[in-house]
């Protein structure tokens, strides 16, 4: 198994190297004009020529690639064309709020998605199953960006219960000192014990949190259901049934355990989806996260920022998949 995990880690590294290479060449092969972007809209040809020199765009592609990779190994993601700040520094402030949303959605996916899939499989083709199936397929069919607008309409415009967007009320931001420990506001305010801020932060995270959770909940429920259905048809479950074991015991102890591999993979996958969903949702809720950052980057063709976010999300995706594979590898049936 050690050999397997080692192989998987090597593959993960290879994939990351590939992702770096592909994104690099994408930005160079596809039509875009970084130099013009760098100097701004009213640049003279001389200024653009100077920018091409500064950005090293006049060198052969392979030399550019070498510099890019060497810088990357030093942890240098380049400088944003728009703000002229190092991309890494910018990402550091944008990552925690996104992480906060992703964490919330993952927790929801586990505590709602798994039981939903479980009961759906248990009561296959009964009313509950139809409901659960409908719900889980419905949740993965919803356009997240639209759900965001819909929730804003209901809870902000009609019921006037929750704020439209942002992380904190502007007035409260002036009245209190906002703690900065992890960068995840709900945690920070809770740790420092500032209840006014905590409640306000919570109010702000409810809508984006729900929006982002729907997809993972649906996906996890759907996959848990189909994995369980497959397992429930296996001989060892029939054997357990013929021993007279209680249905619930069989379901929770014997069947669920064997479906956890699938669930783990799906969970890892769904975090990947969630990461990208934040691109659409954060902009709507004015949430200061990576998604908001890349939306503006995409609009202004700020390629160092785009590559930075791509690398960040691809590496977390690769790592998550690696974790899922290792969890599966622990399963004795896969062990070689």
């Amino acid at each position, binding site marked *: 198994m050690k050999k397997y995990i080692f192989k998987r880690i090597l*593959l993960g590294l*290879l*994939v*990351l190297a*590939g*992702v770096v290479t*592909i*994104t690099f060449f*994408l*930005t160079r092969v*596809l*039509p*875009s004009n970084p130099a013009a972007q760098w100097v701004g809209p009213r640049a003279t040809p001389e200024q653009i020529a100077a920018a091409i020199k500064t950005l090293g765009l006049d060198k052969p592609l392979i030399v550019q690639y070498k510099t890019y990779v060497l810088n990357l190994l030093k942890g240098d993601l380049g400088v944003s064309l728009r703000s002229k700040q190092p991309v890494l520094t910018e990402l550091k402030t944008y990552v925690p709020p996104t992480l906060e949303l992703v964490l919330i959605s993952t927790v929801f996916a586990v505590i709602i998605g798994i039981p939903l899939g479980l009961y759906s499989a248990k009561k*296959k083709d009964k009313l509950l199953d*139809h409901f659960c*199936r*409908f719900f889980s*397929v*419905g949740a*993965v*069919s*919803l*356009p*997240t*960006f*639209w759900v965001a*607008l*819909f929730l*804003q*309409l209901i809870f*902000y*415009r009609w019921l006037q219960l929750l704020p439209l967007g942002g992380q904190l009320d502007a007035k409260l931001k002036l009245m209190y000192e906002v703690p900065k420990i992890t960068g995840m506001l709900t945690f920070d305010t809770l740790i420092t014990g500032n209840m006014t801020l905590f409640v306000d932060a919570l109010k702000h995270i409810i809508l984006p949190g729900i929006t982002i959770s729907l997809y993972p909940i649906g996906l996890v429920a*759907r996959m848990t259901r*189909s994995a369980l*259905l*497959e397992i*429930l*048809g296996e001989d060892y479950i029939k054997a357990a049934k013929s021993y007279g074991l209680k249905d619930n015991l069989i379901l929770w102890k014997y069947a669920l355990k064997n479906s956890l591999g699938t669930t783990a993979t799906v969970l890892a996958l769904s975090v*990947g*989806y969630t*990461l*990208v969903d934040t*691109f*659409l949702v954060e902009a*709507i809720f004015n949430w200061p996260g990576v998604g908001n950052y890349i*939306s503006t980057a*995409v*609009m202004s*063709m700020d*390629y160092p920022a*785009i590559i930075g976010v*791509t690398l960040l*999300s*691809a590496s977390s*995706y*690769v790592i998550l*998949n690696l974790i899922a594979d290792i969890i599966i590898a622990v399963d004795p049936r896969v062990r070689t």
Partner: protein
Amino acid sequence: MNTYNSWKKIKSKYAQLRLNIYLLKKNTLTKWALYGVVLLTLIALIVPIILPEDVHVTQDANPRDKLLPPSSDHLFGTDELGRDIFKRVLLGTNISLRTAVLAVGAAILIGVPIGAVAGYYGGFTDELLMRLTDIFLGFPPLLLAIVIAAFLGPDLNNATLAIALSWWPWYTRIVRGQAVSLTERPFVKAAQAMGTPSARIILKHIIPNCIAPVIVQASMDIGGVILTIAAISFLGLGAQPPTPEWGLMVSTSRNYFLNAWWYSIFPGLAIFFTVLIFNLLGDGLREILDPKTRKN
């Protein structure tokens, strides 16, 4: 002898089909989903004929009628230029379905040959192609499509291409697995022994025999692809105004929806129901065609 065998084959295929149809009928949700898909296809085909896009909807601006709530004149209300949202939503069906089918088709055209070659040759070629596939799968879904679309420039065709370029690895994986086992089968061995060129074997023997699971996967993917197109258009990287594309409509509605709820609700519902119907059908098809889940 030969005719007898092929007759038997047809008969067993027919029995298989009848069993599948029976299972489909038994599965209420899937049956309704199938009707839904038929209805959507009809809308997509017929509406552009009776409602010529340019005359009625894309340029039909009546500033006098802007942002009217739903009424008997305008079932879904009107948008900021006074265009009828109901007509635009109907026209959007064609755009979404057409681009989704195109994107999936292109992804299959890229993915299937790569998978077949990898599975047939095995060894180093296999390793190389499959690691390449792994790299493409290393991007979180949607992200690669967004990045490619961003660099290609905002346009619906570019977005379709971008989706195809990020979606093909899924088909490669399926086909490769099939191709590996097909390569060991007697008919392929026989073809090899007769000196049939590899390219011909792949085209005539491998690919036709692994197309069925690809079709099933494709039917399951259509919903996701429709959603992806809407998302890319929502970001402003897909369809451009005045195209009546659903994602773009929701995106434009962002400036008005707090006072004109109908503007974002209806195009969004259109996306939701379309994707839902395709997902329900895909889900049901998988359940029917997969003997593992069928036996309970």
